[in-house]
């Protein structure tokens, strides 16, 4: 079983991002489960969403404590919460940050990727400067950074799950898929 934890802020679309990833894995023939951190959402407050993936039906119904992959939708969360908590030895981190933002950040031994999903989303007209909609871009970046999903599956999941601006969302996901980079400190 593979577990993913997504950190975001209320209103950023972390729950939809978890759903797009779950549907993408389902399209590729996996069993999936996705859910938000159980609670009361407040706009701007730190929130989490989760995805479980397996080759057999998923029985487990508890929360996720030891994810294998972390996605961070807002770089300021790195200072607010311990985004690496419970991350396994071979865990990966994917963060929405441009080159300047990520410079100096330290994620220890974890394989870390970064992508400027905010700029990509705005370039494709998704959301506004204060509330960019980055969930499709980050899903595209995750597919390519982890190598776990084909782009076609992300595109199909966007087609199924995103009711508006499907073409723009798919283009944003493609650009993030192509531009996500491996971070090496210093």
């Amino acid at each position, binding site marked *: 079983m593979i577990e993913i934890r997504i950190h975001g802020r209320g209103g950023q679309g972390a729950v939809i991002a978890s759903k797009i990833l779950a549907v993408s894995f*389902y399209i590729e023939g996996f069993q999936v489960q996705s859910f938000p951190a159980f609670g009361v959402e407040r706009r701007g407050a730190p929130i989490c969403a989760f995805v479980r993936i397996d080759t057999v039906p998923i*029985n487990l119904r508890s929360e996720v404590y030891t994810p294998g992959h972390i996605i961070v939708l807002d770089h300021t969360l790195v200072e607010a919460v311990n985004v690496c908590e419970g991350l396994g030895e071979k865990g990966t981190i994917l963060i929405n940050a441009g080159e300047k933002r990520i410079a100096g950040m330290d994620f220890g031994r974890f394989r870390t990727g970064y992508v400027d999903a905010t700029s990509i989303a705005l370039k494709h007209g998704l959301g506004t400067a204060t509330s960019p909609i980055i969930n499709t871009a980050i899903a595209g970046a995750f597919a390519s950074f982890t190598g776990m999903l084909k782009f076609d599956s992300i595109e199909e999941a966007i087609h199924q799950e995103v009711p508006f601006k499907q073409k723009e969302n798919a283009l944003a996901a493609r650009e993030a898929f192509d531009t996500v980079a491996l971070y090496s400190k210093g």
Partner: protein
Amino acid sequence: MKKVIIGNYSASYAVLRSRVEVISAYPITPQTQIVEFLSELCGSGDLKARFLKVESEHSALASLIGASSAGARTFTATSSQGLALMHELLHWTSGARLPVVMVNVNRALAPSWNIWADQTDSLSQRDTGWIQVYCETGQEIFDLTVMAYRIAETVMLPVMIAYDAFYLSHTSEPVDIPEQGEVDSFLPAYSPGVFLDIKHPAALGSMASPKYFMEMRHDQQCAMEKVEEVFTGSAGEYNEIFGRGYGIIETYMLHDAGKVIICASTMAGTVRSVIDAMRKDGERVGLLKIRLFRPFPAEEIRRALDGKKLAIVIDRNLSPGLGGIFAQEVKSALYSAPNPPDVIGIIAGLGGRDVTPELIKSIIIDSESDSRSGKSIIWKGLNKGGGA
């Protein structure tokens, strides 16, 4: 058609496919998404139902009592405080023999305010005469809600479909939504023998003197006694059409188990994953999941537990002063068993506290010493300093 959807939408799709005619509801977390989606389906014309927006849960059920009395197929959904506010009318619905189907998303009762999973809300309505069914997966929500109409309209009793807040209500997973024609072949249109009709004026539910009242309760009990058979028959037909079968209880790795965990709803899934892990280390543990809670499947439970050493009932609910409600029901079912297991009652996961695989494993490991302790209630997962 398989879709990755939240448990709440699985309930909405079941209502759509069941061709419900009147929906009346008042919003409450974590149920609201069910009726929001149904409202959209009514708005788009996909579901040709009357959607009543009412000022309280009491009114939601009151209006369905009216609609059902007039012969309509009806639905509502609620949770926690909302269900508690319906209490008076829960009795009325079953007493009037109306086949209303309701989803209750299990949420803790206040105080303190808590929107998370806890089964005390529906279990504390156990004496209101509703059939109660507990679901573990999004697929069970769909299948058992469709089956609920068939059962309700056969025995003329209301059905409550219950499932855990968030663990199921807000969790997305693949659910098969059968085509309308297939569901139609399982669930015919509702056509009651007796209903309110302005062309043939009559009154239902008026005064019944001591001369008549007791027979009405006797009839109600007789109808309850038919439920297990009707459930099993409906489930068999459902299985023939859709390839998914459901028992009134469900067992897992029970055949050679010495210790048996008994629970309901989503916790059963986590228990199954713990059983798989512990069996690899030679611990012979099994699961008995209770799906039908009212009427209580006492005979099936006695049979399943015959010859077992220890039954560990995990309750995500509390009847203060007594303990877990499932544990109490299991103990009373076993009273007439010739060779009953010891039973221990565990309280865990109240108000949405997570019941992790580690916690379930520790419950199994501690079970023999807990059984010897003679305590009637054993609390697990309490914060340090909590409890006696």
